[in-house]
């Protein structure tokens, strides 16, 4: 195992013009030198080993894409060090490009008017892939997904799902050491998401490609990542296993109840009865968030049964999504 990506105390600042409002303000802005410094990424450090799939998470505007752009060499860090596969990305951008693959969920690197196979052939020449490697890769693709119908279809006629799938295949084509996937499942339906997850997983396994994945879909994280890194407002909040994350936040479980009578009234009564739990109600259920370290779910249930007539109940484990939501909202304590 060797470190594929090493990031040390990386900071990225942007200079932004302070814009004023209205026509008058805009005219003044023409001559303004009133800049402010925005720190998009603040002192981030991490190391990624070969073959890892790392989920890189954070709310919109957290600095994820900026970090990815620094790792790919499109942006130069303001301070700090980045090494990707032994290269300093922004200095050796062309050399670095040979060793990485990139997919941006909202854009395509494929040739819009051409059938997919032509894009593959162009990439083959640009990345100087040998015939043998190219054939092997296509064979691998054929064993993983049904690409035959895609190969001869112009990219502009593809559905979003097909295009994303093609883009991922294109990014892996030259067998890069690292692939950056920036929101690859954005806007896709459930079955396509599943297909893409399986594909990424299989390619990572077969080729030991390191994958950095940014996403807002916790399904992606649960299906693919063992390790996650969370950033917000440019600062790193968390870097560890997904499992650890849940323990880190206490062992929460959600007890959902249906109680006879008016739900919101009952919810208030429940909240009074259980001061150590968080209680909320929607149209159907009263949800009680129980911290198992403070009190057991069974205990809560007995207590409730003594005071209310419970018609129905469900018990939910807390999902990664809930934990992350909590982190976005509150930060790590």
């Amino acid at each position, binding site marked *: 195992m060797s470190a594929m990506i090493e990031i040390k105390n990386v900071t990225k600042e*942007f*200079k932004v013009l302070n814009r004023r409002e209205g026509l008058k303000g805009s005219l003044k802005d023409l001559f303004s030198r009133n800049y402010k410094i925005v720190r998009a990424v603040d002192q981030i450090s991490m190391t990624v080993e070969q073959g890892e799939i790392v989920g890189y998470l954070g709310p919109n505007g957290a600095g994820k894409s*900026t970090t990815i*752009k620094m790792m*790919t*060499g*499109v*942006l*130069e860090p303001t301070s700090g060090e980045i090494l990707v596969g032994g290269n300093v990305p*922004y200095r050796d*951008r*062309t*050399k670095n*490009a*040979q060793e*990485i693959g*990139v997919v*941006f969920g909202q*854009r395509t*690197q494929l*040739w819009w*008017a*051409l059938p997919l196979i*032509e894009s593959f*052939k*162009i990439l083959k*020449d*640009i*990345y*100087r892939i040998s015939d043998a490697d190219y054939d092997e890769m296509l064979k691998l693709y054929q064993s993983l997904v049904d690409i035959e119908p895609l190969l001869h279809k*112009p990219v502009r006629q593809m559905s979003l799902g097909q295009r994303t799938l093609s883009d991922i295949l294109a990014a892996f084509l030259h067998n890069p050491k690292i692939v950056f996937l920036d929101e690859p499942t954005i806007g896709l339906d459930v079955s396509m998401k599943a297909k893409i997850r399986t594909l990424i997983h299989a390619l990572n396994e077969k080729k030991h490609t390191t994958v950095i994945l940014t996403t807002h879909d916790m399904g992606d994280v649960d299906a693919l990542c063992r390790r996650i890194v969370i950033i917000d407002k440019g600062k790193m909040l968390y870097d560890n296993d997904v499992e650890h994350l849940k323990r880190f936040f206490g062992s929460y479980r959600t007890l959902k109840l249906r109680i006879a009578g008016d739900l919101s009234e009952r919810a208030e009564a429940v909240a009074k009865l259980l001061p150590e739990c968080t209680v909320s109600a929607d149209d159907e259920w009263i949800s009680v968030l129980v911290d198992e370290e403070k009190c057991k779910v069974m205990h809560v249930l007995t207590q409730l049964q003594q005071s209310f007539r419970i018609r129905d109940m469900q018990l939910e484990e807390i999902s990664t999504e809930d934990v992350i939501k909590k982190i976005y909202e509150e930060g790590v304590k």
Partner: protein
Amino acid sequence: MNLKKYITLTRAGIIESLQFRLSTIIMVLGNMLYLIVAYYLWKAIYAAAGTDIVNGMTFSDTLIYLVLATALYNFMEMYAVWEIGRAIQSGKIVLDLLKPMEYRSYLFWSYSGSFVMNFIATFLPTFIAVCIVTKGAVPFGINLLFFAVSVIFSVIINYSIDFMVGTICLFTESIWGINIMKQMVVTLLSGATIPLAFFPEALRKAAYCLPFQSIYHAPLSILLQRNPQPADVLPVLGLQLFWCVVTVVLSKLFWKVSIRQITVNGG
């Protein structure tokens, strides 16, 4: 086999432009329309002058010059400014920068396909038509070879100027105005719309000192020269080569500065 990765882009460009048959046809039609307008315009100019020869050129000289200039323009115009500007505005430039080759060459070779196509679809037919219609106004001989060399220089100079203007878009974040200005300056001072011979003395002298005349005026003057002597042609080619070097170096410099603008400020 380093060239292969460039040639593959040319190939892709050819296939790509073949996908859009209609636009090729419309381009040829638009081209003809322009030539008809030019024909009547210059006819009026010659009628008003009252002599057969204006500024040392006969009506048919002027017309042949203009027809060929238009054909050359259609095949050489790269719209690189648009392309760079659009790539920056849409953010597509990030993906282009991640190709394992320099952006300057990537863009050029991506274009080269439509070069080949436009050469075959517009320049060649126009050229042949001119030769047939004028029955020998275009001399055949060594000048064709010189012309070919000269056009290669023209393409490089034209692209480098386009590329430089394109990088300016990085700073202004708008394309339209800059591009229109560039087009006006280039088409006028290069002799693409009006032969340089018609310019007032001072302007003509100024035009000869600028790189633009090397784009259209130089290859066309070589092509239309009867019995060109190396002594006539070589200075022209030499000047073109000089501008080639200057503009290529300058465009590299421009890129170096503006790539920092992207990598430091995020474009």
